[in-house]
């Protein structure tokens, strides 16, 4: 059976999502389909990965190569896929528990290594799959089954954490803002490096209304980051320079609901490229030798 030459929505839709009706994750999934349609990568070269959580069910709903790994550890797994296979486009989806709690260490280290891939964190401020426990992003006072009188631990500042991590593309969006999400995800996919997006994605079951303050249709505001255009105008100086990490920190510290858009973007050599250089240098030294000959010369030195 021949495969469609053009990647259509139909060809990349898989199992029907098992999320609760009204879950913000549906919109993220729809946006991912749209971005894949726009990017038109070869179908077999797209990889959709996830860890564990409601949002991490994602790969089952996308008809691409993919995997559902263990809680919090999808990043090193996916980084290996990216590092060893230049032909692949690697996308990782997960939630706030996966990204900021059990997988917090992996997030920071994959970011600093700048492995080329896109990581989408669907942040709902609560553990949904296990039915309402406090998450690392739950606000102070949030009542859950593990904090019946309200959360007492200071939540993680997701954008502050990401800016500090060394990721080279960092953006924030809201699951009710489809056009904005699409733009962010497309830019993230095209970025040559570790790109990460936090998407506020409401859990209608366990934390309804959590993100109304960022949703104009619910009486909130969706303040967008105005990026500097470098057009020489005086008003341009007031716009955000996405390569300015201090400015990114300032925006990460703005009061709830904060701002949306690209906080930071820079070009730094990826681990993919740096490992490629190591390989090229090592291959030059063994000039033209086959694998067998390289190993034989290693043994010859131990005679």
């Amino acid at each position, binding site marked *: 059976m021949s495969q469609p030459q053009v990647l259509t929505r139909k060809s990349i839709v898989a199992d029907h999502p098992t999320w609760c009706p009204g879950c913000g994750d549906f919109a993220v999934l729809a946006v991912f389909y749209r971005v894949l349609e726009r990017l038109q990568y070869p179908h077999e070269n797209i990889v959709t990965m996830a860890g564990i959580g409601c949002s991490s069910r994602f790969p089952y709903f996308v008809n691409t190569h993919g995997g559902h790994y*263990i809680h919090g550890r999808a990043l090193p797994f996916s980084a290996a896929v990216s590092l060893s296979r230049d032909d692949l486009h690697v996308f990782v989806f997960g939630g706030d528990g996966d990204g900021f709690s059990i997988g917090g260490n992996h997030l920071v280290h994959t970011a600093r290594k700048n492995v080329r891939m896109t990581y989408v964190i669907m942040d709902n401020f609560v553990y949904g799959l296990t039915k309402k426990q406090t998450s690392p992003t739950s606000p102070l006072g949030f009542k859950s089954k593990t904090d019946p009188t309200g959360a007492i631990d200071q939540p993680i500042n997701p954008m502050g954490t990401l800016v500090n991590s060394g990721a080279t593309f960092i953006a924030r969006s809201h699951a009710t803002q489809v056009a904005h999400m699409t733009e962010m995800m497309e830019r993230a996919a095209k970025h040559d490096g570790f790109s990460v997006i936090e998407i506020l994605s409401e859990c209608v079951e366990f934390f309804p209304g959590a993100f109304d303050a960022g949703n104009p249709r619910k009486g909130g505001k969706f303040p967008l980051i105005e990026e500097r255009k470098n057009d020489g105008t005086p008003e341009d100086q007031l716009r955000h320079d996405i390569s300015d990490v201090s400015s990114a920190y300032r925006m990460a510290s703005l009061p709830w609901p904060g701002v949306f858009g690209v906080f930071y973007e820079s070009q730094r050599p990826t681990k993919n490229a740096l490992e490629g250089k*190591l390989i090229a240098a090592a*291959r030059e030294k063994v000039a033209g030798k086959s694998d067998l000959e390289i190993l034989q010369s290693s043994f010859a030195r131990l005679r």
Partner: protein
Amino acid sequence: MVLPASSPVANGDAPVAGNPRSIHDAVIRLAGDSQDGIQTIGGFLARLAGRSDQDVMTYMTIPSTISGGPSIFQVRMGTGDILTAGDQTDLLVAFYQHSYEEHLDSLRPGGVLLYDTDHVKPDPDDRRFTAIGVPITSLTVEAAGGSTKGKGKNIFVLGLLARIFDLDVGKLAALVRERFGGRSEDIVRNAMVAFDAGYAYPADNIRDCFFRFAAEPGERAHGRPQVTMDGNVALTYGLIAAGVRFGAGYPITPWSSIMEMLRSDLPKYGGIFVQAEDELGAIGYALGFAYAGHLAVTGSSGPGLSLKMEALGWAVMSEMPLIVINVQRGGPSTGMPTNVEQGDLMQAIYGSHGDTPRVVLAPRNVEDCFYIALEAGRLARQYSTPVIILTDQALATRIEAFDEPDLAGLMVDPKPDLSERGTDFKPFPLDRITRHAPPGSRIATGHYPTVTGLEHDELGHPSGNPELHRRMTAKRREKIKALAAALPATGVYGDDEGEVLLVGWGSTWGSVREAVNQLRAGGVKAGQVHLRNLHPLPPDLGGIFRRYRDVLVVEMNDEGLYGYGQLALLLRACWAMPSIRSITKTDGLTFKVGEVVDGVKLCLSPRS
């Protein structure tokens, strides 16, 4: 220094000059501090033996302190099968008073103590040995200059040993040059000055008195040159020959040297080794490489393996080929990081959660470290399964010489299979062994697979169906049982039936074999089975066990709450035979031959 008398013999009842003891092999123990470079000269001696077509085995202890501390290197070289590094030493070189005090007991009665008179005051009343003092430190300073502060006294001792044992100076000089030549000509020159000073010391009469190798070894029958290396090096090259080009790890003793070598060697082959942020990340990377279509490796020592266990469960569930190495050390917890133990067998077989059948292999000596890696690669691919290699600190650090492998016949081409999969492709077929389609492979149906840790149907969709879980559990179990059924018949060394069968695994092979030789020489009908496949176990073991009155399992782990070491417990569970009992030890040191023999004598049932 040599006593004023013409003979260097200080005391003791050793043979007199002109009547040297003819020897087939010599055990030399170098005892000093870790910064003295005694491992370096031990390595030279081992490699020299390898180049001379002699057999060689070394043993060393390394302090787990950050810098310094007492350290030894023992080398046994000679002709015939060298199976162990030797229970007792023929020559002890003591650099310090503590070296003398700590290691004098390792010397056989009548053996030679060579000590540095600048640091050691031996007991003048001890007449068990021949004590020969040499001002090692001051003569080294004299030769190499005061600025060297005694650095190079290891090379001085190498020169001295070359004189005593009539070693091939040309070959040794070549080894010194190979070792130091890369750095600078000055270093080579200083080393050779120290070497010559040691060699010039009038010590050849020591040889005439005590040591003369029985005969020059002849040409080796097969003509393949010998290579000399430690177990971690052999394992690393075995992995490369097996087709491993990608891997990840996190530093931990005694695994680190494998990851260090892979990090610098794999790029030559177009591969990558990642130093991950932690052990969990390391196995994550390795599984990602495996999913991407490569044969990948991760490894650690016991504590790190504990951290990898959740991911190992995923590897079993998703049926991902992977090689996992555990270089065992003394445990639990941080335990004894630079000592040896075989305490991780149950962890390797049963660690993780749920029902997780996997493969566990153990190499028996340094040479086998190379071949076991090839075997692990073959099994991982053929059965699409994680394979754990249980090696240990003793194998990791000891040096042996062995025939260079036939690399041309063994190398595996590691190309991922990205061919288009037909319309009948299923990632988890119930009637066949899983063959994953790595990303990049087109799937003719247009339906792309998801690899998953959730229980799943044949296409990889999550499923909580009870009957499916039963069948998938059986699928994962039956392929490992098929592997067991395909194992070759278990070989028995020694008596094919009789009084006692010694069963071992891993690095104890040589000690157990020598013990069997000694027992048989003493009239005991004894055999040896040494298990390379620890999980699944060869199915024919029960039949072999029945041919012996006693089956004694020799292991470097504790007898535990039930009185049996880990393998012994497992063998008893599988074959329910009361004749299976344990010889265990937990001092963090390798089994001496004498310890095995003594253990057997304690356990043997009375002859009927």
